[in-house]
């Protein structure tokens, strides 16, 4: 049979796994980091930026071969932005590396996430899924800047 040392090791690893799983089960309450799931609706497929209030914006982005619309988005520092992303044709990617926004743009699906832009700057949106021969040209930007007086 197992010796004492082995039983001890098995118990410790079992306990660690239980603690780990418990910690992970606490996670779902705060699962905002992953692409959210919302049912498809045609209203999301019209590219636009909507201002909810001074610090809250909604961006409806549409990816297509080989550009994003809108191609340039301007919001003030400290804004919280909801991104709704879809595709007009093939599968594209929507990656804002500096803010860890990372979603797929899929025909017939709406990817949603929310992110804050505390610092002024230019944030690139890069398509990171192969989408045909012009894939390497596909980039847009978010300009986070104080509004001009």
């Amino acid at each position, binding site marked *: 049979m197992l010796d004492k040392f082995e039983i001890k090791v098995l118990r410790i690893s079992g306990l660690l796994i239980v603690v780990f799983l418990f910690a992970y089960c606490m996670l779902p309450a705060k699962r905002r980091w992953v692409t959210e799931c919302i049912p498809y609706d045609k209203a999301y497929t019209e590219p636009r930026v909507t201002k909810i209030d001074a610090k809250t914006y909604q961006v409806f982005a549409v990816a297509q071969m080989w550009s994003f619309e809108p191609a340039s988005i301007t919001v003030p520092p400290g804004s919280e932005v909801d991104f709704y992303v879809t595709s007009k044709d093939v599968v594209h990617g929507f990656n804002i590396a500096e803010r860890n926004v990372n979603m797929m743009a899929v*025909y017939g699906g709406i990817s949603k996430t929310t992110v804050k832009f505390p610092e002024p700057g230019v944030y690139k949106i890069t398509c990171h899924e192969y989408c045909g021969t012009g894939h390497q040209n596909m980039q847009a930007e978010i300009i986070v800047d104080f509004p001009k007086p």
Partner: protein
Amino acid sequence: MNVSRSLRNVIIIELFVPITLLILGIYHGLMQVVYRAGVIHQSSAVKLDYYRGLTAHGVINAIVLTTFFAVAFGHATMLFYMKKEPNKQLSWLSLGLMVFGTLMAAWAILAGKASVLYTFYPPLKGHPCFYLGTALLIVGSRIPLFDWLRIYREWKRENPGVKVPLAVLGTLVNFIIWFVCTLAVAYEVLVLLLPWAMGWNPTVNVTLARTLFWFFGHALVYFWLLPAYIMFYTMLPKLAGGKLYSDLAGRIALFGFLLLSVPVGVHHQFSDPNISSTTKWLSTILTFGVAIPSFITAFTLSASLEYAGRQRGAKGLLGWFGKLPYLDSNRYLFGYMIAGLILFIFGGFTGIVNSSYALNNVVHNTAFLPGHFHMTVAGPVFLAMIAMSLHLIATLRGRKIFMPKINVIIPYLWMVGVLIFSFGLMWGGLMGEPRRTNLGMTYLNPQHELYTPQWVPSTMLALAGGTIMFIAGMLYFVVFFGTFFGKKAETAGLDLPVSEAYHDEKMVPLFNGFRPWIIVMIVIILIAYVPALVDVLSNSGPGAPPHLPHNPLPGL
């Protein structure tokens, strides 16, 4: 042991075809790092377009080589341990379908009619021959399972109460996983994509196709890995001069893979729409579960190697690490396996990063991903496969290894190359460098408005590592073909190294058959995939019309 002429030819062809194609696959591996580092700012070089070459690289290296090898190695292990030959007609039928399918798909890719990458996500559309060829390759590779199961049942009837050899158990586990997961991709290809690519169906549900692909796609990873694991458990301890630390641990690990290889595919879709967060969260948990058999393996193999080192006279806590036969040209298999295992330490940990729900946001679809999987599939998997291909060719044809001194350093050269290459890719990935992108045309082109200078050092490292890998690959081809076409020097036959077990546990009936495990496997798959498919079907919008890769307007 003796092998009939027919089976010997089947195995030899199944190794010769993919290794010959691999020359093209590795050539384009080198070309990719050249393009990506901005050395050339073009869409194609030597008449091979970047994305066409990338498709060939993925399909040849990750699907053709691995599938052919798994079947050839399966035939060899079944014969070696069960002492019964697989059915002649069925093994030739399987080989014929695989070769025919490969040629069909290769034609479509090289003619530039299927630059859709090896994941072939719709609505990018490839030539119907690409889909049909891939399907035939897969169908061909499934045939031997039924024949091997017949051999296994006969053997069990003749040997009641005897443990099924670990290698046979591994081969059957692997092909049962393969049988289950390929059902989904066969449905995707034959029901969704082929009629759509022929113009009979106007649209296809993109997320559904992606979900079916990844049902297959992640199990595919374990289909690559398990032949290597079989070698690690049943050969590596012997080659190192020791014994396998625990035979039962190997069985537990293999059945762990059987349970958890398939139901984890959704972790490739954390960034996808139409799948709920709960389904994605469940997939994270299950993926952490599938790390456990690998941890068991890491422990068992380290213990086996420590025992081997001590048998060879090692002293102290870590002295055994220095006493292993790293450069023994008579045991070159050891070098290939240990180099792969060292890479797999990093490959495994980065895999846990990818499967973690939140961390995935940092790395998904960036260069971090190829950085990770070149330390798994191009690490232990690739090295074990090419080493065993060489061994089987040499023994089955009765040839001596060509340039044995060079052969023994190839795996270490490859390992150093991969470490540099993957470090570059992962560093770039953390800075947002996308994968599968011809960076040289825009992001790494100083003349272009999208020029991104912070990616220069990372892509340069990838170029350096990739070049070293290419050199190691070319040296391997010299050794392989030199051995293949060398003079006959020994009697031909099949010989595999066999490890004894240090702890040879009593036969436990639970670990000596498949039935209860397959039932639990199906239950877990249903728990994971029924919600995923319900999500996809209830949240998806309209289906998508086909697009050719060069045309923004839909059409065939």
